[in-house]
């Protein structure tokens, strides 16, 4: 029983355990915050990668995949596949409506031609469209009152989804949120045009595409004016900065990938001078995106799609009416979205490796800190160990006292740490925005006033001859004076620059797995830190422990 009572006494009768609890809590919070942000970041990348690409991507970029409707039918019959959609993925130029005058800005863009309905089934495109009325009254309540989206109707959303301007029936174009420099990101993450007249869904842009012939040469570029019908935000900055979407049919027309008649160039011309017809040249697409059924991994789907393609190619080859054959399966690239987005993901995975190493160091430093705090506390108790041993306490009894000591402090400190980490993570975007603003006047005025009071208290300490309070008050005073000066000079800068990181907001979910592991680590290192020096003291002869200075 005495170990319990003594541990209890050690814990409750001094200030040091509180300091140890605070230190453990800070260490745990640090680790929880760093890791949660990092892994939240990766999760976001993964989630958006999937919503952007589906799970498996079939591509044959330059010449295009012929008879793709038949391929999609074959794939959609697979038990692993949920939906598939054709896609043209190419590059082009977009002439923006700004600035005023005749010299308009032209940007290069990654142009996706999509079939709106099936594309939405594969990628959740409707979620990515930015201009739409709030989904629910709660969502509306969380927006700032001047948010433009509050005034919108479903029409703009449907126009975006269907890629048409419903007023005129013109085929429409959807821009990535950051393609237009007219859009300004507000601190709460919402967007608005810098000048009201540059609200993009009311503008027209000119898109120029360059068709590539079967021989791989560039044909005459084609351009077309599109009304902008909406804008989308995937959350991945590089994509939002570069991508525009039009309907598949328009893209095929501009790139001459639409269906046509196939003439026999070798045969002698007909009597009327026209070339003999060989058959039809089918419409083509450069990619097909496939989404897996729930519970099917991208790898499983990839295998199934591979087999489906082989079947499709075989059927096309056997079909006498089809002059144009499908490329052989080994010439196709059939990749999971992760493989397909290698360029995007690889640097992040490198970063994650870096973070793992850095994180291990942080963890070890924290572990070392916890260890040494306990070491110092228990070392100071060596004399007590000698006393206990001299009245007959066993070495295990001694160990048990300090084991409990470390256990209680580690567990409580760890809990506080997880709580603190949760608080910070949960409000991290708010904190980030607050830091990103100039300090309000009251903050430095308040800190100067408290600094003044502290100096007064320290002067009082001098006159009453209390050295410690003089010291503490003047340290507080100086700190607050410096903080105040810092606040005056502080100019808001957003540390999380969306052009450097992929996402516009910092992940704000706690990684509970890491939190639990870290808590366990805190307990283990606290117990070790407390029991190692205790065991050491219990092993030596009582008199030596008693003499310990």
């Amino acid at each position, binding site marked *: *029983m*005495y170990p319990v009572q003594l541990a209890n006494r*050690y814990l409750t009768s001094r200030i040091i355990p509180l300091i140890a609890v605070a230190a453990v809590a800070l260490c745990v919070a640090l680790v929880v915050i760093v890791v949660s942000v990092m892994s939240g970041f990766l999760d976001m990348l993964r989630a958006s990668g999937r919503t952007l690409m589906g799970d498996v991507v079939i591509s044959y970029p330059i010449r295009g995949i012929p008879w793709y409707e038949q391929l999609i039918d074959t794939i959609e019959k697979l038990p692993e596949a949920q939906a598939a959609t054709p896609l043209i993925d190419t590059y082009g130029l977009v002439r923006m409506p700004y600035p005023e005058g005749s010299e308009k800005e032209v940007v290069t863009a990654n142009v996706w031609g999509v079939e709106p309905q099936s594309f939405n089934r594969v990628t959740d495109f409707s979620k990515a469209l930015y201009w739409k009325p709030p989904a629910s009254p709660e969502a509306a309540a969380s927006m700032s009152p001047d948010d433009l989206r509050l005034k919108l109707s479903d029409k703009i959303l449907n126009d975006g989804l269907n890629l048409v301007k419903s007023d005129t029936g013109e085929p429409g174009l959807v821009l990535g949120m950051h393609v237009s420099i007219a859009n300004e990101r507000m601190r709460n993450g919402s967007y608005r045009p810098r000048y009201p007249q540059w609200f993009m869904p009311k503008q027209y842009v000119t898109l120029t595409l360059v068709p590539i012939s079967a021989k791989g040469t560039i044909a005459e570029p084609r351009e077309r004016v599109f009304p902008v019908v909406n804008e989308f935000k995937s959350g991945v900055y590089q994509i939002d900065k570069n991508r525009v979407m039009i309907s598949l049919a328009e893209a095929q027309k501009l790139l001459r990938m639409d269906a046509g008649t196939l003439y026999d160039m070798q045969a002698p011309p007909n009597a009327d001078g026209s070339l003999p017809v060989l058959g039809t040249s089918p419409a083509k697409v450069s990619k097909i995106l496939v989404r897996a059924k729930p519970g099917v991994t991208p790898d499983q789907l990839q295998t199934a799609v591979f087999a489906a393609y082989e079947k499709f190619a075989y059927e096309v080859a056997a079909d006498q009416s089809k002059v144009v054959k499908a490329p052989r399966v080994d010439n196709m690239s059939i990749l999971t979205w992760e493989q397909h987005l290698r360029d995007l993901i690889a640097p992040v995975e490198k970063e994650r490796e870096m973070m793992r190493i850095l994180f291990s160091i942080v963890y070890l430093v924290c572990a070392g800190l916890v260890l040494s705090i306990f070491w110092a506390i228990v070392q100071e108790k060596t004399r007590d160990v000698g006393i206990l*041993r*001299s*009245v007959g306490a066993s070495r295990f009894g001694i160990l048990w006292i300090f084991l409990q000591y470390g256990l209680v402090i580690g567990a409580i400190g760890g809990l506080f740490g997880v709580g603190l980490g949760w608080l910070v993570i949960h409000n991290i975007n708010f904190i980030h925005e607050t830091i990103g603003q100039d300090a309000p006047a009251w903050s430095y005025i308040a800190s100067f006033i408290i600094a003044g009071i502290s100096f007064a208290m320290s002067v009082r300490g001098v006159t009453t001859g209390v050295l410690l309070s003089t010291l503490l008050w003047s340290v507080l005073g100086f700190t607050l004076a410096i903080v105040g000066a810092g606040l005056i000079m502080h100019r808001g800068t957003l540390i999380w620059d969306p052009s450097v990181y992929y996402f516009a907001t910092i992940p704000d979910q706690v990684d509970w797995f890491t939190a639990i592991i870290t808590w366990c680590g805190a307990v283990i290192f606290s117990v070790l830190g407390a029991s190692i020096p205790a065991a050491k003291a219990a092993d030596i002869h009582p008199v030596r422990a008693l003499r310990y200075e």
Partner: protein
Amino acid sequence: MSKFLLEAKELRKTYHLGRVKVPVLRGASFTLEQGEWVAILGSSGSGKSTLLHLLGLLDECDADSGGVWFDGKPVADLKFSARNAYRNQSVGFVFQFYHLLPELSVLENALLPNMVNAGMHWFSKRAQAQQHATELLDAFGLSHRLTHRPAELSGGERQRVAIARALANQPRVLLADEPTGNLDTRTGGEILDLIAEKHRKGLSIAMVTHDPAVAARADRVVKLVDGCVAH
């Protein structure tokens, strides 16, 4: 069968200060009969405390020493648990420098050997131990100090708590290292009266002291000279 309650033969103790060997005990022998009170005299630094520590198994003597016997049984090479039990019940130790636990109250300090002894059965044994300790502390004039911390006591009061602690498990031998060294003559005398009272009831005592007046109350006086006990 030895007639001595506590016997030490040819004890040697050498401290090593770096390469320098400092022999403190060079074959000191010591005996204590059942019910006897022996005073150990010696100049400062002669090794009196060292000898007492060896008798209480609080330190280890050199390998070429004779050994220590308690009630005729050798104790020097006992197992750990038996050594703990010896320190806890067979002897009570009073240190020159009190050595109380600062976080515990006076009463809890005095109860410490009982708590250690009781282990998991503390709750059932508590009342009895508490009564015994309170009586002792009462007799030592500390009844109004039971809940105080050692830091709030005078040196003399602390030593009285230490004596109460040493007697908590009613050991057969009290090993006291200058128990009255820090007390004024009158208080010291009172404490010695108390110890003498216990002695009359059968407590055997080995007491280190400087004070010839204290030594005079003992049954027998031995002197520690040049690391050996001179009779």
